């Protein structure tokens, strides 16, 4: 009896958690779009627009194009979203302690976040459409360019906190603003997040003036809705991680909102200021500057840690 209750409660909790996360993700997407619109002197969407989009997409028929592996085609969006949702379990979203935690969950989270991108790349390669193929190539190329610096940037605070566990690092960072001691790491983490989310200027993989919608060109209906939800969840997780590691932690929901929204404003500003980078320029930027800078940062941190403190 007790075990069944626990199972039911866990499932209920998971469903509620997922629903709340979706709504939070959609709200953040709206904030991002609205801020971008305001920066461009436009009105922007109304508050329910992302939700309406998702509901509309979910209600639509999903068209499976000819010549694709239909199991993969249908399965990939689910995998992508599942990856994002699982990652959310390890992250202190909204200041609430993560549901699961174990030493080394930072690595798992970062890889789960990459799962979404991988799924998008695979989905593009699966559909055999020319725009999708080019998009998939670009998505994966971009993955290999920002992933290393983003991860290294996340490692900075972890090295200082001497732990691979998100909750431990977040607790350690709660009293120290790592943005002051590791500014380069913060910058790389934030811009890496933009690359991860394929926001402008890193939106070459879905540059619609060149390759229509990139890897997701053939997706419609449910698959597209799931991919978009996955991205929204990833946006929340990414912002939470950066805020928790670099901006003095997200101890309570209020601080969480203030810090993540402030980060979102910066992201929106960066999105509005730059022209899209070509894929070769993106790769060049990340490997020539991003990785190098963050390595220097890590080295300095490491040496200070080792010999001075």
């Amino acid at each position: 009896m007790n075990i069944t209750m626990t199972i039911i409660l866990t499932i209920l909790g998971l469903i509620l958690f997922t629903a709340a996360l979706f709504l939070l993700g959609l709200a953040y997407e709206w904030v991002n779009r609205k801020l971008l619109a305001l920066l461009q002197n436009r009105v922007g969407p109304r508050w329910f627009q992302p939700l309406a989009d998702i509901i509309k997409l979910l209600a639509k028929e999903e068209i499976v194009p000819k010549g694709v592996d239909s199991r993969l085609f249908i399965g990939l969006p689910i995998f992508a979203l599942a990856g994002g949702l699982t990652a959310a379990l390890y992250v202190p979203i909204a200041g609430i302690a993560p549901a699961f935690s174990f030493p080394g969950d930072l690595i798992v989270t970062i890889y789960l976040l990459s799962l979404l991108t991988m799924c998008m790349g695979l989905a593009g390669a699966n559909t055999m459409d020319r725009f999708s193929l080019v998009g998939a190539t670009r998505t994966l190329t971009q993955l290999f360019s920002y992933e290393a610096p983003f991860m290294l940037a996340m490692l900075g605070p972890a090295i200082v906190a001497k732990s691979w566990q998100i909750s431990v690092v977040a607790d350690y960072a709660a009293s120290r603003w790592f943005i002051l001691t590791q500014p380069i790491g913060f910058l790389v983490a934030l811009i890496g997040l933009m690359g991860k989310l394929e926001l402008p200027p890193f939106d070459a993989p879905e540059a619609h003036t060149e390759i229509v919608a990139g890897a997701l060109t053939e997706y419609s209906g449910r698959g597209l809705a799931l991919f978009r939800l996955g991205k929204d969840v990833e946006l929340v997780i990414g912002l939470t991680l950066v805020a928790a590691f670099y901006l003095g932690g997200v101890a309570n929901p209020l601080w969480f909102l203030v810090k993540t929204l402030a980060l979102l404003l910066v992201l929106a500003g960066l999105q509005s200021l730059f022209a899209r980078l070509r894929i070769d320029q993106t790769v060049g930027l990340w490997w020539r500057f991003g990785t190098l800078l963050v390595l220097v940062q890590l080295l300095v941190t490491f040496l200070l840690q080792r010999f001075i403190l």
Partner: protein
Amino acid sequence: MKLGTMLRDVTGSLFRRPVTEKYPFERREAPQHLRSLVKWTPEGCVGCSLCETDCPAQAIDFIILDRQAKRYVFTYHADRCTFCAQCVISCRQHCVRLECDQWELAALDKSPFELHYGDPADVEKALAGKTK
């Protein structure tokens, strides 16, 4: 080489109202010289029907019922009109002019777009002749 040359526009916009007009809630005044619906007045019309000949969109049907008695019907199809004002130029007797106040012309069916000018009895007769 600079970065963020549009920073001032962007930050300025955060504290400014969006320029987008919220159309059905905010309406603009019609511009002073707006070209809107065509109006025809029978005074002085000599029935040359140049307005019909020259209309590039065939928006004008000029029906001559009786040239001697000056019984003309001027049918205007606003949905075909391109508002070029050529009829105003072509009419030497200044019978045709364009209104300049109404700019919201959308409707759900075509009936408001067919306007008849002329004596009501003549219009009826012209319409009856058309349906036959």
